[in-house]
C-alpha cells in the first residue's frame, strides 16, 4: 500500500517541483516598430519591410511584435498596422508571421503620407503596448529621420515614461538642412537621446546601416 502511495506521489511531486522551480520572469521579447510616413520620409517607408522581415525571422514563439505608423498625431491604436503575440507552438507562430508579413506588405505598398510628424505620441503609444505585453525585454524601433513636426494644437512637451525600454532609431536619414549644417543632425540625435534617457529608457541606439540589423534586438 505504501509503495503504491509512493509511486502515485512521484509524478505529483515532480509536477509540484516543476511548478515551484519555474522561472517567474518573462523571457519573452516585445518589439514596437514606429514607421514614419511624413512627407520628408515617405520615400523610405518601403525599407521598413526589411526590418519587419528581419524581426519576423528573429523573434521566437511567445514574443510580441507591433508595427505602427507615425502620423500627425500618433497616440492612437488606430495607427497600429499589425500586431501579434506569436503562439508558443512554433508551427502556429510561423503561420502568424506569414499573416503579419502580408499585412505589413499591404501597408508599405500604399503608404499614406502625413502633414506632420508626431514621434512622441508614437513613443507613448508604443510604451503602453509594450508594457501591456508583460515581456521581459521591450524595444521600440523608430524608423524615421527623427525630425518631429507637431501642429499647434498637439501637446507633447511633457515628460514621458519609457522605463525598462530600449529605444533604437533606425535609418535616420539626413535632411537637406542637415547637409548644410551637420550640427543640426547631431544635435537632433543628441536631443532625442537626452529625452529618451531622461524618460527612463535602458538604452538609446542609432542604426543607419540596414545591412547590419543583427544589433537591433541585442543590447
Amino acid at each position, binding site marked *: 500500500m505504501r509503495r503504491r502511495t509512493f509511486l502515485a506521489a512521484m509524478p505529483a511531486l515532480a509536477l509540484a517541483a516543476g511548478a515551484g522551480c519555474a522561472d517567474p520572469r518573462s523571457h519573452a521579447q516585445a518589439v514596437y516598430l514606429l514607421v514614419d510616413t511624413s512627407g520628408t520620409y515617405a520615400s523610405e517607408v518601403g525599407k521598413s519591410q526589411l526590418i519587419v522581415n*528581419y524581426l519576423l*525571422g528573429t523573434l521566437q514563439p*511567445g514574443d510580441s511584435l507591433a508595427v505602427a505608423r507615425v502620423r500627425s498625431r500618433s497616440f492612437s491604436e488606430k495607427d497600429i498596422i499589425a500586431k501579434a503575440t506569436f503562439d508558443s*507552438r512554433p508551427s502556429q507562430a*510561423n503561420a502568424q508571421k506569414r499573416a503579419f508579413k502580408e499585412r505589413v506588405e499591404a501597408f508599405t505598398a500604399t503608404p499614406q503620407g502625413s502633414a506632420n510628424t508626431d514621434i512622441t505620441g508614437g513613443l507613448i503609444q508604443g510604451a503602453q503596448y509594450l508594457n501591456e505585453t508583460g515581456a521581459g525585454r521591450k524595444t521600440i524601433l523608430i524608423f524615421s529621420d527623427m525630425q518631429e513636426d507637431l501642429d499647434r494644437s498637439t501637446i507633447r512637451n511633457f515628460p514621458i515614461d519609457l522605463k525598462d525600454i530600449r529605444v533604437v532609431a533606425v535609418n535616420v536619414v539626413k535632411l537637406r538642412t542637415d547637409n548644410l549644417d551637420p550640427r543640426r543632425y547631431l544635435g537632433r540625435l543628441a536631443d532625442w537621446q537626452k529625452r529618451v534617457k531622461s524618460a527612463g529608457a535602458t538604452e538609446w541606439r542609432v542604426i543607419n546601416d540596414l545591412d547590419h540589423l543583427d544589433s537591433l534586438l541585442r543590447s
Partner: protein
Amino acid sequence: MADSPFWMIWPGNAALSALAWFVVAMPFLYAARGPVHALLRALGQLAGGPLRLGARALLAAAHDLRERNRAVLLAQGLEETQERIAREFERVAALVKRDLEGYPALQRRLLDEITRVEEDYRKCGEVPPPPPEWVDAVAAVAKIKPNGNELVQRLLEEINVSIKAIHDKAIAEYRRAYQARHRILDGFMPFWRSLDRTLAHADRKMTSLADRAAAIDAQMERFEAIVKKSDRAEHALTLSALTQFFTATVVLLVAAGGALINFKLIALPMSEMVGAGDYLTASLRTSEVAALVIIFVEATMGLFLMETLRITRLFPRIHSLPELQRRRMMWAAFTLLLVLAGVEAALALMRDMLIADKQALLQSLAATRPAATDGWLTGIPTAGQMLLGFILPFALAFIAVPLESFITSARTVGGAALVVLTRTTAVLMRVVGNLIRQLTKVLATLYDILIVLPLLAERWAKSVRVPAPGRPAGVDLGVGERS
C-alpha cells in the same frame, strides 16, 4: 624640517636617526632577549604543533581509509570471483549435460562399431584350405627323372596335366577368397571413418571440458589469493578497477554524445507540445527540460530492462523478485522503451517538418526563390532522423552496463585517490609545520645578531669572572645557553 617624521632625531638623516634609535633600543632588546626567544619558540609550537598533530591524524585516517578500501576491494573481488567460478561451473554443467548426457549411447555405438570391425577383421584372417594330401604324392612322382620310357613319359605328362588343372583351380579359389576379403576390407572403411569421427567428437568434448577446468583452476587460484589477502591480489584488483573505470568513463562519454544527439532531435518538436515560451531557469526552456526528461526516462527504462535481464546488478531488489514478477517487469520496461522509441521517431519527423516550415518562412521573408529539391533526396534525412530517433533509445539502454562498471570501480578509484590526497595533505602539513619551527629558530638567531654587542659584552664579562669548578675560564655562553 616640519615635514620630517617625528622619530627622526636628525631631520633629513634617516639612517643616522635609525642608528641612534637602534643604539638606544639595544639594551632593552638585550634585556628582552629571553622572553622574545620564548615567544618565538611558543609561536613555533603554536603553529607547528597542531600542524604536526593534524598530519599525524591525517596519516592515521589515510591508513584506516586504505585498510577499508582494501577490505572493500577484496570483498568485491571475492564476490566477483565467486560469481565467475559459479558461472564456470554452470558452463561445465551445461557442457556435461549437453555432451556427456549422450555418452552411454556414444559408448554403445563405439562398442558396436568396434565389435563389427573385429568380426570383419576375423573374417579377413580366414585363409583358403590347404591343397589336399595327394598333392604330396604327386610331387613325389614328379620327382621321378624321365629315363626315356614311353610309359613313364606318358604317365608324367598325365600327371603334369592334372597338376596344372588342380593348380589353376587352386589359384582361382585363392583369388576368390582374396576378393571376398578385399570386399570385407572395403566394407571396413565407413566403420573406420565413423569410429574416427566419433572418437574425434569425444576428444573435442573432453578438450572443451579440460579448457573449462583450466579456467576454473585459474579462478580458484585468484580466489585463494584474495582469501589470503595477498598484496598481489590487491594490486591486480586495483589495476582491474582502474581499467574498468577508464573504459567505462570513455563508453559513458560516447553514450553522452548519443544522448546529446537524441536531445537535439527531440528538443525542437517538444516545444510544439509543451510550448516554447516557458522557462525553468534563465536559459533553460521547459521544452528542453521535457526532452531531457524523456531521454532520462528512456535511460531508466533501459536500466530496468538490463536489470531484469540480469545483465547488471545495480538494484538487488529487482534480482530478488520472483521469476514471474521479474518477467513482467522486463516486459513492462521493454514495452515502455518501445513506446518511447516510437514517440521519438514521431518527434524526429515533426522536427523535420518544423524545420522545413521555418525554412520556407525565412525564404519568403528573404524574398528568395526556394531551391529546387528532389523529393527522393529530401526524404533521406527525414527517414534517417526517424530511424535514429527509434534506434537511439535502445542504444541508450545499454548505458546500464558501463554505468554499473563505472559505479563499482569509482568506489575503488575514488577511495585510492582520497588516500593519496590525504597522505599528500599530511605530508604538506608536516613540511609546513617543520618550516614554521625552523623559521622561529632562524628569527631567534637573527634577533641575537641584532644584539650582538651586548652579547659580546656579556661573554667578555663572564670570561673574566672566576670560573666555576670544572669549567675553564672563557667558556662561550652564547645563544644556545641563554635561549
